[in-house]
């Protein structure tokens, strides 16, 4: 880590230390302490909002709950410092664990609303449960922090203590997201369905990060209780959340360091504007607007690029390829009374390429969704070898060796091609990219690829998991003739190595020469099945397929 970024951070950190020790008075220390406390809560928020992209509106609630827990254990139970902070951290984590299961499965804004509801209920409890919380007056007289009899006084000692906690929090956050993990998390954020299909355990990551964010929030709140000495319902109010959100975005949401910089800036800004008297918060709002407009990548974006860290950790080898056949038996799927699939059976053996054709809306993608576990069949079974996959989660299905690609490529645009593959498992990225015709581009961003190349990246990524069966949803769409020929070559080679391939495509001239067998779906039923030669002569297939959209 001897690059310019580290140097700059070192200089910045040193300048801050010199300022704190030599120049900041009691007031300067107070502001720095507040910035440090919010930085810790923002580091937590960065995990769930920045990394996972989940708009949690409960971070302020975790912060306030931590403050109340620390205050109550200190005042009512007479706990000393380390235990108050442990209580302050534990209570929000406990709440997060309790609500995680129902809440984390909700999609974006419903998740936001659920977390908001919980935060508002907590606030109501703090105001109205006066016997315990002291009501709107709150709790006062919370003692200062002391460790082993040594009191950490206000001013420089407290500032130094809080910023040591910030450093530790940064380190923990870094551990949670280091190396390959961060790539998996980025894939989860940018392409959640692909992450599931690639075997990344999204539920576990979300659970862990949500609990971690609650822990950081509560820890910060507990520090706040000791630093201010008073806890009132104000610590639970919505504006704390808004402040943390702004800190995370202004700081640069993919970086915990950004959260720290955001906290430093946002806590200091209004103080700098004090001279504007009645208008100082107007100036603060305007500066906030300026910051978001003129800092496209946040404060962290002003720092020189970090060198991509190569993961050195030994990672488990990919699953060895299994010579297992997929068999789908009599599956049925209804959407609101309409049968998308009706009694469909299909099998794919190792080394075999099975083509799946049918007009739009005939159920091709639904079948792929059932096989990959994104949707559950209404009835019927799905086996892979002798393992029953029916009803399993996409992650577990992916880990048995079935990996799909998507009709609309699901990639993480902010990752390089190399990192996109590393995100799913340790592999020889250069060789895999070369196989799909993307050699030499390992360092490019996935988002910069044209759609057709993104589809090839998806195939490489599927191979990186060590998949045995590939379910490819229209892989040739948007490709020119040369690219198609290359892709056909690749698929043949993969089949020859023993991969089972289920190929969904519209383009007959691409699919027919490639497939060993073809299955034709129409309105959710199999209307024809056989070798490509048999299919082109099958009147039912012709009616179902060519009849509707003649080539």
């Amino acid at each position, binding site marked *: 880590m001897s690059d310019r970024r580290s140097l700059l951070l070192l200089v910045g950190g040193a300048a801050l230390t010199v300022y704190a020790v030599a120049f900041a008075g009691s007031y300067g220390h107070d502001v720095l302490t507040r910035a440090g406390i919010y930085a810790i809560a923002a580091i937590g928020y960065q995990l769930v*909002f920045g990394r996972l*992209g989940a*708009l949690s509106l409960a971070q302020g609630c975790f912060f306030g709950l931590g403050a109340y827990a620390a205050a109550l254990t200190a005042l009512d139970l007479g706990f000393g410092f380390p235990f108050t902070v442990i209580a302050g951290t534990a209570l929000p984590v406990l709440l997060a664990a309790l609500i995680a299961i*129902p*809440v984390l*499965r*909700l*999609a974006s*804004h*419903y998740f*936001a*609303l*659920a977390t*908001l*509801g*919980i935060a*508002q*209920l907590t606030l*109501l409890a703090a105001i*109205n449960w006066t016997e315990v919380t002291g009501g709107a007056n709150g709790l006062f007289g919370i003692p200062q922090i002391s460790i082993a009899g040594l009191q950490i006084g206000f001013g420089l000692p407290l500032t130094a203590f809080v910023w040591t906690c910030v450093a530790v929090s940064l380190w923990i956050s870094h551990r949670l997201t280091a190396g390959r993990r961060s790539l998996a998390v980025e894939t989860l954020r*940018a392409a959640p369905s692909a992450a599931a299909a690639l075997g990344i355990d999204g539920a576990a990551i979300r659970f862990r990060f949500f609990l971690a964010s609650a822990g950081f929030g509560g820890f910060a709140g507990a520090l706040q209780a000791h630093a201010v000495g008073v806890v009132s319902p104000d610590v639970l109010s*919505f*504006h704390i959340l*808004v402040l943390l*959100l*702004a800190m995370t*975005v*202004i700081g640069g*949401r993919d970086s915990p360091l950004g959260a720290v910089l955001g906290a430093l800036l946002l806590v200091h800004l209004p103080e700098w504007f004090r001279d504007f008297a*009645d*208008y100082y*918060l*107007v100036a*603060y*709002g*305007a500066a*906030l*607007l300026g910051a*978001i*407009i003129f800092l*496209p990548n946040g404060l962290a974006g002003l720092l020189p690029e970090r060198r991509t860290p190569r993961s050195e950790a030994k990672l488990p080898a990919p699953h060895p390829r299994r010579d297992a056949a997929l068999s789908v038996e009599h599956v049925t799927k209804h959407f609101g009374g309409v049968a998308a699939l009706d009694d469909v059976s299909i099998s794919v053996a190792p080394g075999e390429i099975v083509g799946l054709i049918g007009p739009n809306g005939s159920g091709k993608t639904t079948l792929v969704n059932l096989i990959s576990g994104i949707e559950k069949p209404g009835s019927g079974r799905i086996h892979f070898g002798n393992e029953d996959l029916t009803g399993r989660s996409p992650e577990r299905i992916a880990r048995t060796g079935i990996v799909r690609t998507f009709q609309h490529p699901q990639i993480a645009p902010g990752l390089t091609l190399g990192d996109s593959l590393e995100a799913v498992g340790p592999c020889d990225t250069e060789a895999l990219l070369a196989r799909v015709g993307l050699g030499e581009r390992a360092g490019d961003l996935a988002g910069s690829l044209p759609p057709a190349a993104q589809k090839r990246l998806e195939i490489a990524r599927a191979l990186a998991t060590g998949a045995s069966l590939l379910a490819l949803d229209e892989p040739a769409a948007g490709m020119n003739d040369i690219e198609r020929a290359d892709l056909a070559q690749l698929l043949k080679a993969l089949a020859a190595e023993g991969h089972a391939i289920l190929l969904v495509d519209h383009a007959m001239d691409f699919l027919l020469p490639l497939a060993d067998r073809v299955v034709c779906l129409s309105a959710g039923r199999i209307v024809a099945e056989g070798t490509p030669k048999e299919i082109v002569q099958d009147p039912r297939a012709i009616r179902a397929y060519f009849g509707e959209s003649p080539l």
Partner: protein
Amino acid sequence: MTSLALAQILLNGLALGAAYALIALGFVIVINAVGAVNFAQGELVMAGGFAAIAIAPLVGDAAGLPGLLLLPLVMLLMGGLGVGFAHLAYFPLRKRPRVAVFVSTIAIGLVLQHLANAVFGAAPRVGPPLIAGDGPVVGGLTLSLQQLGVLGSAALLVSATGLFLGRTQTGRRMRAVAQDPEMAAAIGIRPARMITLSFALAVALAGAAGLLLSNQFFVSPNDGGLFMLKAYIAVTIGGWGRLDGAVLGALLIGLFETLVAAFTSYLVAEALLYGVLLAMLAFRPSGLLPERARTRV
């Protein structure tokens, strides 16, 4: 409780819900246009109230006109503010992740709130009445003209917005841009203009709500947060991105709050609102009505 008192309470809840509906409608129009939550919506309502108070002496009082005539003026003024709002909060950030727009709207909300505090002072103010005087008495129920004015104006504005977006060429273009900006651009619609128009409409509706609420419920610089919360909840329970859902959600919230408070207490009403919300999300995790907005990152 007498049925008469109950009727009066219901009417109050309906009037409050109708004003919330305008706020939620503006909120959802911005969501559909640019896919982002406008955190300043509440402050814009407050700004509408203060705008009405500021221009009332210049227009209504001087000429002896009823406050109802202020409504188009306030909406026009706020619509203009909406154009500026779009150019500050959205266009500089249109190529950036949507969360950037969250923060830009938060920032503008802060500016509006504290500007109002500095310019108009901290005291709550009473807005101009729409129609002064007592209204008709229907079956023993005294209907204040003001309340009828609020209900009528809100109903009119909600239907006019629905008709505008659904039936007119411009409205259809706005929806086309909302659904697929690239496709819309390809068939000759200028997305930037339609997005500006969406913001203008959303802010004008917020301003209208501000005027409608300002007389009966006063206006103070710190009111914004409350309205923002109510709009957010209304839009989510009504099905993210649905105009009809937003209106339905807002009316339900208004009635729910008032009725539950009438039979229990404000504390129970508020706790129950969030409790029901959580229960609804647990059992029906995608809102009352199916959502219609395009998916976004």
